[in-house]
């Protein structure tokens, strides 16, 4: 039955092309160990996984080799926007609501080896975001910033409808696609030569490091790099209130090929990918890992 499913999925290419995609592995993760898990993030080795745990989205770290699950933060919503730095440590944003109901956000670093937490960016009111560079990590707030290194190398971030590309520590701002609501989900290709981002109302795009659009991938949310040539993303629909379908897509970064890795009825979402693995969750928080082969 499982083989049949994999065969069917392997046939779901939506654009003509020579590529043949086969799902070679698809397994449930943390079954019977964890409750609902959302917002998974793989590290670059594909060995460790961050996820938001439970309905309050606390942050946990899962070692896929040993099976160990380490709580990182029980702070509510800490798991929604966490990331691995280039140093393998975990960076995330915590928040506190003060007596005037203003939200103050703090940048944290979780040292994976020491299992210790450090504040790297003091609490401040307003948006705090992070960008992972090839040499370091930056966290940015309205009044204070943090960088793990003087030169974080090549990195990408977004601010409103601006794509912020840092090369050799020097940041440039680009607006290659029109979008009133703003840009989301920026990421750098594994080889550090291309930028992937999503423009609200316009879709996912790939640019070079000068902000020049190389490809338009379509209206797929939460795109992330599978490798230097392919991207995985979420294809969801809704009725304005709740999701009505959601699936994981494989997209060629030049925009010439797309392929359904899961069915639209699977309600699979929030993909992350590294080292040949694809991890995603479902609308009710079930984590899956998938491995595929692409015959170009």
């Amino acid at each position, binding site marked *: 039955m499982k083989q049949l499913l994999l065969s069917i999925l392997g046939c779901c290419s939506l654009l003509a092309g020579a590529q043949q995609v086969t799902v070679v592995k698809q397994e449930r993760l943390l079954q019977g160990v964890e409750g*609902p898990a*959302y*917002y998974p993030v793989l590290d670059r080795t594909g060995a460790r996984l961050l996820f938001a745990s439970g*309905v*309050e*989205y606390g942050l946990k770290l899962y070692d896929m080799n040993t099976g160990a699950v380490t709580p990182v933060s029980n702070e*509510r*919503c800490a798991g*929604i*926007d966490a990331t691995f730095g280039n140093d393998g440590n975990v960076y995330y944003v915590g*928040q506190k*609501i003060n007596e*005037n*109901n*203003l*939200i103050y*956000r703090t940048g944290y670093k979780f040292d994976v080896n020491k299992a210790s937490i450090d504040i790297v960016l003091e609490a401040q*009111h*307003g*948006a*705090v*975001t992070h960008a992972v560079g090839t040499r370091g990590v930056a966290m940015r707030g*309205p*009044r204070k910033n943090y960088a793990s290194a003087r030169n974080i190398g090549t990195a990408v971030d*977004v601010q409103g409808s601006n794509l912020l590309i840092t090369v050799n520590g020097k940041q440039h701002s680009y607006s290659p696609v029109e979008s*009133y*609501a*703003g840009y*989301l*989900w920026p990421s750098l290709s594994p080889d550090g030569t291309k930028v992937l981002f*999503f423009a*609200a*109302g*316009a879709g996912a795009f790939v640019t070079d490091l000068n902000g020049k659009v190389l490809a338009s991938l379509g*209206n797929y*949310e*939460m795109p992330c790099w599978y490798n230097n040539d392919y991207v995985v993303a*979420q294809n*969801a*629909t*809704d*009725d*304005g*209130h*709740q*999701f009505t379908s959601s699936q994981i897509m494989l997209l060629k970064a030049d925009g010439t090929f797309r392929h359904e890795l899961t069915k639209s009825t699977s309600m699979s*979402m*929030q993909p992350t990918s590294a080292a040949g693995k694809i991890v995603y969750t479902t*609308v*009710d928080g079930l984590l899956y890992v998938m491995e595929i082969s692409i015959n170009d």
Partner: protein
Amino acid sequence: MKKNILSFAFMLLAAVFGVSRAMAQEVPHVYINPGHGGHDSDDRNVVIPPFAQGDTLGFWESNSNLWKGFALKEILTKKGYQTSISRISNTTADDLALSTIVYLSNHSGADVFYSIHSNASGSGGATLVNFPMGFYRGYTGQPVIPRAADLLGALAPYIIDNSSTVWSSPNYAIYGDWTFRPEWGTQGYGVLRGNNIPAILDEGSFHDYYPEAYRLINHEYCWVEGWSFSLGADAYFGRLDQYGLGMITGTIRDDRVERVDILRMLGADKRLPVNEAEVKLKDADGNVLQTYKCDTIRNGIYLFKYVEPGTYTVEVSHPKYFSQSTQVQVTANAKTYQNFDLKRVRDTPPMVVEYSPRWSEGDDPVLCSTPIVLQFNWDMDTESVEEAFELEPAVEGTIKWEDTNYRLIFTPDDAYDVDTDYKLTLKKTAKHGGGIEMEEDFVLNFRTTSRNHINKLAMFPEEGDQVHYKAGAYVEFRSDSLLNAKDLYTFFHIYDKDGNDVEINKRNIKNNKKGDAYGYIRLSLLKALNPDEQYKVVVDKGVSDTVGIHLAEPLTFNFTAVDASAQTTEANVVEEFESADGFSAAPSEVDGLTASVSANTDKLFGSKSLQLSYTFPDDEENEAVVNVDKTLETTFSSLDKIHLHIMGDMSFNHLNLLFTGESRAVVSVPVADLTFHGWRHVSMPLTALPEGDKYQLTGISLVKNETVMGRTGAIRLDNLLVEKPVGVEEVTANSTVKVMPNPASDYVVATADGYITGIELINASGQVLVRNASNYINVSDIPAGVYFVRVYTGEMVTTRKVAVAH
């Protein structure tokens, strides 16, 4: 000193700059999400006149949500907030996906998230429900982010205090989305899941409550909801005292005229909203500060934005209404509601300007169902008019008002009496909506016709009838006048023994049409009935003819479902009617009388039946004859009983079989009056045949009935059987035994020269029905028919034929 002064100035400047910079950074940031978008499949369109379905100028939830969002952004900006909004136009591309909205909110640095919506009952039409609801993520009372409950609690009072609308419930309903949508588990609303700040989704009102839909088309009404959101934000962030302007809004309605363009309304919404009223805001010196012209979209909404606190006069004028003005108090950062109920200008006395029926002596009488219609020059005060309405002789009836109370219609509940002079007086105490009475009484006279109810001409099934059980059985009602065919079938109800509806085939309904000789409706049952079970047809009193005359009382007809083929006895089949060979229509000398025979596949037995089609030229008692050209193997006698299966056509014509004896005398034996539809088993003793002769079946005769029914039609015949008196000896002729009376109705009594030891009543099949060790039998419960009586006297048995009649 100079250096100290400069240092102080520098420090002061730095302090002021620093503080202002800090304040600028720490103003509340509100993320605004106007729900839906794009006028597409996940949008919500309510079709209300004059807008057609899909008209983007009509009600779309994406429109009103966006206008509310724009207003909130504008107002919060004036109040010094930082804002973000997820869309600024209404296209499918701007209708962002849920994950996108949540990401944008999370990365905006906002302190709160408002998703702005309106609600729908999901009824698919107009609802009578209208109240606001709000949701946070989690279970009710247990929000995932506790401050979300505070945010919603701060908003609720400013939504529910909306006095321009009419609520069906006085409370703002607060739910956790997991509680409200338990079928979604902990998925909840898509813009709340994963949203890491206090986030709420507000359903401000019900847009399928049609008066609300009209209001939500008005931009200013939506602006007020934006203002309400801003007050909720101020309350949440403790900033209610930080804004100095207020506003005035309200709804302008007619003080008494009810709106008729929509049907389901609550409270004050039942009254007509005034379009195009002009509203002026005046200061204490009478200076006009703002002017507002109400729109034409049937909501009566007006608004004055950003008004300095103080006392003002709001003045409303409209060419068709008396102007009104009132003093209002405006408070900083609050809402001032002031509704107006305008009185129409009605400056002349009311009078009847048109009426019906118009009748004068010498005119034709008026139909007994004719409504009385009075058209006035003003919209009337219904209560005083109805009190002033006097009809002599008195008639029970119903008064209905139309045209926003300009027109009264009186309809008798039943009908006027026949051949009666009526006088309607509308006393001058009748007033219009402005309170002025009529100058004089209005009087109307009319005389009625001699007919006030329709009469049943015929019905199948009649009370006690039998109906062949197969699907497609007909039910037909006929009346002495043509029936009003509109929705006529809805007045007919067929029930099974348990009172359940028996479904009719709505594709197979036949109604009378213009030119028909009588009124009728013929229904066809969709499914088969259960043989031997009881059913009934109920005809509502409301069945009316083309001039509105209806039945005097409802009618009920009980009937039994039967299997016409199962009722056949073990008698011998003598003709199967499988072919028309051997049958021919006899020529007729009557002009216009035609008859034909053919085989038909609609049969009860075998594969065919014999169809006799006919047309009579008029309603005279003419006869159509089919000759039986072949000779049946069986002969018939007066002792025989025949069984024939007939598919009737409810023509009320008379079916006879023609027998010819050895003496060549032709005897016509009545078989059935064709008062029924469908197959029926008919049995008939051939007692009409003179005794002692043998007969051949030589013809089938159809005689036109004397009514207007049955001029043309077709009947079918299937299996003819004959039942010989098997088991019954020939009637003993040379015996002294006598049986009396004949025919008998109560007792059959035998007399004999000898002692009678017993007596039996035997049917044509030889079955003993009653046995008595005496000389009499009680036949009062025996069905009418021909029987045999067997009388035992000593060792002798005597048989006599006797008829039972009641």
